[in-house]
């Protein structure tokens, strides 16, 4: 464990923008080094204030410190950013149970079950709560099963069955400029690297779900029908976002020199490949 912490600290020192702070904070928390975990989490939150997983981590540390009121606010914020964040939903359920509000506790667990119907820990928690026993504290439950913890093993475990490398087989940039994610921001395939060559797959995936939700809402409320694609020119690169299926999102990133029109054509090809691949799964 100490070696893990050393390795993760070194990784974070090398790339302070990375999401390694989530794993480091969690490792410190599990080791009971709560003040150190708190520093890691707050630094991470300063860099990634819109990342639901960062608020979830901070809430777990606050819960360990018995600061339930602030933990509630952090989990509440996580759910506002990512309404399907099961870790935060379970955390809120735990806090509601602690104050004796069983109806709210159960409502949150039911919400979590809708998102993760195959997660046995949620059924167990509901059953225990109905018997009057406390559901598992988020210190254990969310840490081990939080599916949205982008860098945690669980996130990759849920997609381990998919052969990521083959989603975009044969397509240029399959391992650095193409990304397929599900509606909750979890990576299904492909990978992204930034200009410096650093892997930014998980960070970008976490933000994309919010972009897609907002694009869908904008198109709907302005009476434009369903959204089909979002193209953007950046200072250092261009991107195109599409959705091969209603639940999946595809991002194509290329250097600035590739015109948006060509990028859209490339995205169409990648969309077709992703759709075929998703149908096979």
């Amino acid at each position, binding site marked *: 464990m100490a070696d893990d912490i050393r390795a993760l600290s070194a990784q974070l020192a090398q790339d302070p923008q990375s999401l390694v702070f989530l794993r480091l904070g969690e490792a410190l928390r599990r080791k009971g080094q709560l003040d150190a975990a708190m520093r890691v989490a707050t630094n991470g939150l300063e860099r990634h204030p*819109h990342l639901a997983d960062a608020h979830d981590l901070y809430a777990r540390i606050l819960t360990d410190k018995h600061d339930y009121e602030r933990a509630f606010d952090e989990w509440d914020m996580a759910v506002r950013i990512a309404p399907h964040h099961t870790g935060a939903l379970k955390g809120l359920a735990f806090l509601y149970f602690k104050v004796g509000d069983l109806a709210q506790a159960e409502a949150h667990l039911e919400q979590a079950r809708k998102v993760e119907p195959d997660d046995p820990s949620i059924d167990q928690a509901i059953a225990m709560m109905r018997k009057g026993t406390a559901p598992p504290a988020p210190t254990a439950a969310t840490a081990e099963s939080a599916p949205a913890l982008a860098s945690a093993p669980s996130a990759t475990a849920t997609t381990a069955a998919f052969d990521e490398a083959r989603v975009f087989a044969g397509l240029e940039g399959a391992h650095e400029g193409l990304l397929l994610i599900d509606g909750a921001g979890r990576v299904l395939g492909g990978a*992204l*690297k*930034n*200009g*410096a060559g*650093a892997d*930014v797959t998980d*960070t*970008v995936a976490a*933000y*994309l779900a*919010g*972009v897609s939700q*907002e*694009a869908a*809402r*904008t*198109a709907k*409320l*302005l*009476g*434009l*029908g*369903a*959204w*089909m*694609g*979002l*193209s*953007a*020119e*950046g*200072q*250092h*690169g*261009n*991107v195109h976002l599409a959705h091969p299926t209603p639940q999946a999102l595809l*991002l194509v*990133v290329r250097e*600035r020199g590739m015109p*948006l029109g060509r990028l859209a054509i490339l995205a169409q090809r990648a969309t077709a490949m992703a759709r075929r691949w998703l149908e096979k799964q």
Partner: protein
Amino acid sequence: MSKALDLITRVRGVRGAMLVSAEDGLVVAEQLMEGIKGGAVAALAASLAGRLRRAMEAAGTGTSVFWHLQAEQGAILVVPGDATGGILVVAVAEPDVNIGLVRLELLRAAEAAI
């Protein structure tokens, strides 16, 4: 400023053009065809711009200089506010609008807005 918006709305297929405060999502100036809800366009375009900016920064592409949301029955085209002192230049258009032309007029309007 109204002249710049006027040039955008002259492009065939454009149904309205606006300047929007990126931070507040409020209308600064607008020239819209009837039936387009300026307040809603401003609030939603600013919110989407903010989320897109974070994703693009994370992807290492830098802040966006132009983006375009394509939908079945229309499109939103935006020059974001980073280069224009926090003002978004927004066009609402038909789905088959000439995107290149609107992009040029939006960039011109953004220059005029600085």
